[in-house]
């Protein structure tokens, strides 16, 4: 890993990018004047601040003592995100039980070597608990099973 590749340079670049992105995306916002601010005054000021702070943070990354990026593992990140997205996209068309199973299956990928059997049983227990607490208990407007067409 090259030495410039550390927490500070990357964080600085990230804030710089967000700030610059905000300035570009918000270029049509009306800034107005200090006594009659438009909708863009404060957000664009915040973007400029982020650009400035981003440069400052990145500059700190040139020090020899800048902290290195801790190695991460892609697997948990992807699996957890996939579990949430799976739930989001299956809930409305397919109902809460399918959503829970979809989510649990994705989540199981976070830990290597989990047998299918050890996913299904917790998912069944979890489905029953969710149905009991949220659907029958609190009466949330969730449907349990896939909606039949028509």
């Amino acid at each position, binding site marked *: 890993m090259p030495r410039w590749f550390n927490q500070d340079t990357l964080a600085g670049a990230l804030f710089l990018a967000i700030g610059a992105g905000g300035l570009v995306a918000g270029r049509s916002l009306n800034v107005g004047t200090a*006594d009659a601010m438009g909708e863009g005054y404060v957000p664009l000021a915040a973007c400029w*601040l982020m650009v400035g702070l981003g440069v400052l943070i990145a500059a700190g990354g040139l020090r020899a003592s800048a902290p290195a990026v801790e190695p*991460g593992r892609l697997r*948990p990140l992807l699996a957890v995100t996939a579990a949430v997205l799976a739930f989001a996209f299956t809930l409305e068309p397919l109902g809460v039980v399918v959503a829970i199973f979809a989510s649990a299956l994705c989540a199981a990928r976070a830990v290597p070597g989990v047998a299918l059997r050890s996913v299904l049983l917790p998912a069944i227990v*979890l489905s029953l608990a969710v149905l009991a607490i949220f659907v029958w208990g609190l009466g949330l407007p969730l449907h349990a099973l896939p909606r039949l067409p028509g």
Partner: protein
Amino acid sequence: MIELAGALLGNLAQGFGVAMTPVNLGLCLLGCLLGTLVGVLPGIGPTATVAMLMPITFYLEPTGALIMLAGVFYGSQYGGSTTAILVNLPGESSSVVTCLDGHAMARGGRAGAALAIAALASLFAGTVTTLAIAVGGPAIASVALLFQSPDYVAVMVLGLVAAIVLAHGSLVKAMAMIVLGVFIGLVGTDVTTGEQRYTFGIADLYDGVGFVPVAMGLFGLSEIMLNLESRARDGGLARLRDRLWPSRDDFRSATPATVRGTLLGIVLGILPGGGSTIPSFAAYSLEKKLARDPSRFGQGAVEGVAAPEAANNAGARAGFIPMLALGIPPNAIMALLVGAMMIHGIQPGPQIIAKQPELFWGLVVSMWIGNLMLVVLNLPLIGLWVRLIQMPYRYLFPAIIVFCCIGVYSLRNSMMEVVFMAVAGVAGYVLRKLGCEPAPLLLGLILGPMLEENFRRSLSVSGGDYMIFLQRPISASLLACAVLLLAFVLLPGVRRQRQRLRED
């Protein structure tokens, strides 16, 4: 003086009237239990716990909801101390120091005594701090009623500066995170002009970025991801063989430590950004300095459990003072509670005590009742918590994810909110990997709209003259405090000290 005391008693009586209704008592109990339940799970701190359980309370009426959320909050904090003592796994940074001597006591077979000392020290701190809120809250609120928009801007700036100063990591990064939070808070329809800002045509963004999905993603999901990466920690289970009650010697050394920890906690906890971590560290090092034989610390010194536990409980609760009296949350958890109040249609601020006394006093009294419940309930339930800690994480986290999803979805019945939570989770993970703590972002997100509104109003009153912030005595002195605070941490000596603290 007598009049004041009389008024206080009357108010507390009203509070007892609200807090002792069967429904509110039940909600307080439920909150404490759920909070402890989630709080003892390793790796889930109070902030994540409150964020995850918040949606459950949206179906309640506001007072009950806040009572329950407050219960969740101190329940989870208490749960964190329990795991710190029993298995050497601190739930959050505020119970890190409790691990040192608490777990040492537990390994020596004195787990019961350590847990009892922690519980009693917390109860003492909770009682004193609750009284401080009852006395200090209305006093601060009566001053705050004089505030005009420039003063509000100044008090928020002071709060944000303090949050930067007290953040764990780099100052500039904390500052950037606050600005990012403010920026995200401004997404949506501009209240004054009615124009869309950064909504990109997504209807779910017209009302602004939902606070709950961001908080749950940033704290809950990213915490799960990081936990799954580093699963191998295990401190060895404690033995629970001796009697629970501490000896008379324990009490003799724990009592003064508890009192000192409580006072330190209240003072540091009121400060914006103070929270409960800094008080607990400060209390521990104070005890170590005062002790005749400092080498006992780390080997199971009773003071090393009592003082930080008292300090973190006092600090955590003292945060309610600026939150309730000014509407300014001093730390991430209070920001969550402010968010919950706004969802219930309550605008936090100095007028709350006068306009909704039943909410304020009910909450104050129920915080004390909740503390009592924790002590009475949790000591017998310790065996259950221990068993829960031993449950494999791979069974737990899919359930936690599902509960997060349902909670966020039920907020607006919108799947987009769940997607936003996923995005916030990834963002939280990346930011933490880059050494950026997420707490300042949450503060900025909550304060952003308030800050913009008051900033605009101030400058439109002054005709665009920025000097208005220096002309009003209240705002000028608050801003002066902010500048002094910032200058103070930039002093070379203090910087080195911070550096050293970070490395410890």
